[in-house]
């Protein structure tokens, strides 16, 4: 059924593929929750990728590379912070400029490092957990940055949801005038959030150049920063959904390449997935309710109709470029999500400048 695809390796590569986008997106999520729209993610990512790479090459230690990348990303975002928070420049324009600046800076810094190989960054084989059959190789045998990324997402979730400081940050993002009236230092909170966002974007970029690719080339991030921005919206500014979004985007890339290499037809796969889902819906529903409810039969029927549609389309033999459809599917999903929850979710003061005198 899977052809030459090893589902275990596919799921494992999904976790790795999602990591750089996840890191950049979780940083931007915090920035946006503080009411700042920083469109410079791409620029901070690529700067982080080259600074991290250079530091890793110079010292031979990937960890120092990651630390340097985080610092570099934060330093670049500081520029954005000073311009938008103290000099009150337009956030959208400044963010776009930051992307252009970052791309140029990275190309300049990277001059002498093209085609150089990164030092080895070994995978962790977590004892005990890594030995669990099937789940071990999928979840517990990656490099440490994968877990650091997950840790940051969990930390951000806890921070925003459970901590007092997170509450202040959200207040600043929802209504900066009110937060200011309560005596919170809006600018300071926002500067810290912006720097956190820059550091995370830098880490995401460095993950590409040190682990994922692992070499530096100009234009390495290839628009990944924009995907990270889309994921923040897709996730409705919630860390849990952001994780889902990152895995969706990363997973679609991995799946698409795997299907191609195995020579499988996407339409066949969709047909099978829909039929299996129909069976699962009916059987799980029956076990839970001890009866066939109308709702669950309706779901099963829709899935069967979808399966019939896919196989009918295939039978017609019409042109269907699976690669392009799969590549665009995360964006289509983002548009759907945006339409469905159009007005909800965005922090109230997002993108607005704040000055205490007003």
């Amino acid at each position, binding site marked *: 059924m899977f052809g030459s695809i090893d589902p275990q*390796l596919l799921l494992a*590569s999904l976790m790795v593929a999602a990591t750089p986008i996840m890191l950049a997106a979780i940083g931007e999520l915090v920035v946006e929750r503080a009411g700042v729209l920083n469109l410079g993610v791409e620029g901070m990512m690529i700067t982080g990728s080259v600074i991290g790479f250079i530091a890793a090459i110079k010292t031979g230690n990937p960890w120092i590379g990651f630390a340097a990348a985080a610092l570099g990303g934060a330093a670049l975002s500081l520029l954005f912070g000073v311009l938008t928070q103290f000099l009150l420049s337009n956030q959208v324009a400044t963010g776009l400029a930051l992307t252009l600046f970052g791309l140029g800076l990275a190309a300049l810094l990277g001059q002498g490092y093209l085609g150089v190989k990164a030092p080895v960054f070994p995978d962790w084989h977590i004892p005990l957990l890594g030995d669990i059959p099937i789940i071990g190789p999928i979840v517990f045998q990656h490099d440490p940055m994968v877990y650091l990324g997950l840790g940051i997402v969990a930390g951000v979730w806890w921070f925003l949801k459970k901590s007092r400081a997170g509450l202040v940050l959200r207040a600043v993002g929802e209504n900066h005038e009110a937060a200011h009236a309560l005596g919170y230092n809006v600018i300071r909170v926002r500067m810290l959030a912006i720097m956190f966002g820059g550091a995370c974007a830098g880490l995401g970029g460095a993950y*590409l150049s040190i682990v994922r*690719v692992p070499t530096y080339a100009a234009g390495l991030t*290839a628009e990944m920063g924009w995907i990270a921005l889309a994921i923040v919206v897709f996730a409705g500014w919630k860390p849990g959904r952001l994780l889902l979004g990152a895995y969706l985007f990363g997973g679609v890339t991995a799946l698409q*390449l795997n299907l*191609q290499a195995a020579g499988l037809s996407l339409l066949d796969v969709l047909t099978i997935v829909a039929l299996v889902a129909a069976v699962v819906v009916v059987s799980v529903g029956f076990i839970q309710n001890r009866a066939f409810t109308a709702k669950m039969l309706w779901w099963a029927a829709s899935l069967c109709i979808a399966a019939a549609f896919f196989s009918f389309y295939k039978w017609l033999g019409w042109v269907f470029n*699976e690669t392009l459809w799969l590549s665009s599917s995360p964006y289509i999903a983002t548009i759907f999500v945006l339409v469905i929850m159009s007005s909800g979710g965005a922090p109230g003061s997002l993108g607005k400048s704040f000055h205490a005198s007003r």
Partner: protein
Amino acid sequence: MLRRTLLASAAAATFVGTSLGAQDVTKVGFVYVGPVGDGGWTYEHNQGRLAVEAEFGDAVETVFVESVPEGPDAERVMTQMALEGADLIFTTSFGYMDPTINVAAQFPDVRFEHATGYKQADNVSVYSARFYEGRAVQGHIAGQITESNVIGYIASFPIPEVIRGINSAYLHAKEVNPDVEFKIIWAYTWFDPAKEAEAANVLIEQGADVILQHTDSTAPQAAAQAAGNVYTFGQASDMSEFGPMPRVSSIIDDWAPYYIARTQAVMDGTWESTSTWDGIGAGMVGIGEISDAIPAEVKASAEDMVARLASGEYHAFTGPINKQDGSAWLAEGETAQDYTDDGLAGMNFYVEGLTGEIPQ
């Protein structure tokens, strides 16, 4: 009165002087699809540009714009170059074909040179290299060194140039190893290191131990190196920093002689719209040194093939060859034509034995 005339003539002389000076300098523009630091395709075009500068010194001025998307943006960049006084513009990617033709129609006095396309005009030449000759050598080596009999191929866009490369590599791998199987991934990009690395990893996970690439970055080389025991070939540029393993050989594009000759033609006023398609023999396609990581006899037979391709004694598409659907393409001993129906220039089919379909 005298003084005024003197001043006027001095001003006129200065004016003539500067305008003559401006005419003396030939301005050459280059439009690149990737960054000059890609280590592959665009890197080599930029080497060609630097060679033009070195050859003519102050007599030329070159300008370039990198990472130009293949679409309306390309037209904007070319128009800008033409407006700024470029005499000759090289547009170096297949997807610039229609933009080049459109812009060239608006600037009849500017000469354009479009790489790898097939649409010519009075002021648009086309030029390309017979990369498929290099692919034949790669297939010949790959078929012999693979142990899993699975060869991965990272393709870019489904255009004739890429399809020719796949067919040529497959035919020559099959010739030396009848059990060989090709797994092809269409990346739909010329340059995206992360996606290229991803594609290489997927191919390796699915059993490939030789990776051929038609994308421009060194990322697949790095991915293969990290995996160990996987062979690769440099693409467009030597990529020798990844030798002797995983990179065991390479196709090197050498555009410098062509760029110098065409710039010279513009200077001499002898430029004409031409169609150039040169291979190993003319030096436009170079085969990077075959490393010692592969057996000596494989290396020797590959070098022999390079010599035979260069001399024209052997054509990379020599019959009998069938198409994927089993119908005959070339009869015994027949070699492929360039521009006929079913010719090389517009190749849009797989040869027999390849699995999967070319995406539409």
